[in-house]
């Protein structure tokens, strides 16, 4: 962690006593305005849901916590909102739990909290419960954040692996690998100057618009975060017991990402994304979905990147069709060269 000039977080900010209260009053309650949080009970009592609950949790340990195109606060909201949205549910509430490292500049925490609040507002979700712990210097990395999201599943939405069929198409809402490679450009030892920036964004409005505009077209969705498009697509292949075939020529990969991946010897298919969703759609309706998406924020560069086929072996596999037309197999990531990207 950088040398701290400004007021630092102290261990006493996490002892549940007077300094913790000060932090809650002067910082968190200033940015998070939902009544359930303001009530400061042990648990937040919320309005009854309009459908069965959907829960999702993720911790964010990204290093550095400020990065080109975002920060850990924005990421923590987008990540969990997206995890709920890709199930087809409507995200409503978030809990936010901070693990702060002694010495974190309070001004950095303020920026992160403000960004978190702003992103939550964009996504239309409310922060309704929180927690703060402080760990000694050398037992953290500035700040770790857990967000847990609660949403509800509207009636008649039944997305799932079981819906996926041969003939379905695979759509992504834009370019691949931007987040992973932009984080990478900040890392000591590799650091390079670049125009790259993370794609980090909440996608719930995009997703909801697709689901409402093209009812019945979407079979399944996932956000290709850690492990990238390849790992996520492979998981879908395994769970749906279908083969997924990505088309190398159709993959939207920015020139800057491609260039950086090349000199680092990395494959953009394995690079994390934080504002992307892989959508498996009814093959017949792929163009309709694509047209809808291209009109929407975060959807302008949407593309069909592959298709679903019956499995050719005992289990579903992921293939990529090369420029020469042959198929080669793709596996999950194993040993990410760059940890702590989310």
């Amino acid at each position, binding site marked *: 962690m950088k040398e701290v000039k400004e007021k630092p977080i102290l261990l006493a900010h996490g002892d549940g006593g007077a300094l913790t209260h000060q932090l809650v009053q002067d910082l968190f309650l200033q940015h998070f305005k939902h009544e359930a949080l303001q009530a400061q009970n042990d648990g937040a009592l919320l309005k009854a849901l309009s459908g069965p609950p959907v829960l999702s949790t993720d911790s964010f340990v990204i290093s550095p916590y400020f990065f080109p195109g975002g920060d850990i606060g924005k990421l923590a909201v987008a990540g969990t909102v997206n995890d709920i949205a890709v199930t087809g549910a409507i995200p409503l509430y978030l809990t936010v739990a901070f693990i702060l490292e002694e010495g974190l500049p309070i001004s950095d925490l303020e920026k992160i909290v403000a960004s978190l609040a702003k992103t939550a507002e964009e996504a239309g979700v409310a922060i309704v419960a929180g927690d703060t712990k402080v760990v000694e210097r050398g037992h953290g990395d500035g700040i770790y954040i857990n967000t847990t999201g609660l949403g509800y599943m509207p009636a008649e939405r039944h997305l799932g692996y079981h819906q996926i069929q041969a003939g379905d198409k695979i759509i992504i809402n834009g370019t691949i690998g931007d987040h992973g490679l932009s984080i990478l*450009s900040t890392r000591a030892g590799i650091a*390079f100057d670049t125009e790259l920036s993370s794609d980090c964004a909440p996608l719930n409005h995009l997703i909801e618009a697709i689901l409402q505009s093209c009812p019945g077209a979407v079979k399944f969705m996932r956000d290709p975060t850690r492990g990238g498009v390849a790992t996520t697509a492979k998981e879908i292949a395994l769970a749906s017991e279908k083969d997924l075939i990505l088309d190398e020529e159709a993959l939207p990969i920015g020139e800057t990402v*491609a*260039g*950086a991946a090349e*000199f680092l010897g990395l494959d953009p298919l394995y690079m994390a994304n934080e504002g992307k969703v892989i959508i498996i759609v009814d093959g017949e309706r792929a163009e309709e979905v694509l047209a809808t998406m291209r009109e929407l924020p975060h959807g302008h560069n949407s593309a069909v990147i592959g298709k679903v086929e019956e499995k050719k072996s005992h289990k579903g596999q992921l293939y990529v069709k090369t420029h020469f037309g042959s198929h080669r197999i793709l596996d999950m990531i194993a040993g990410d060269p760059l940890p702590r990207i989310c």
Partner: protein
Amino acid sequence: MCLAAPSRITRIEEASMMAEVESFGNKRKVSLLMVPEAKMGDYVLVHAGYAIQILDEADAKESLRLWEEILCSQNN
């Protein structure tokens, strides 16, 4: 391990023989100690933090021209 990527020299620090090289919007610092004759605008192959060779534009052009001719004649 023997990966080497081509990049264009966009700045040279004579004193340290370090250069900034660029490829598709990404910039890195590399050492020119192995190619001291390199100049601004040259394309170099970069390996493990060092530029190890200046790419020969004439050869690249010639090679591509040759193959395009051969392939064209063959196809026709």
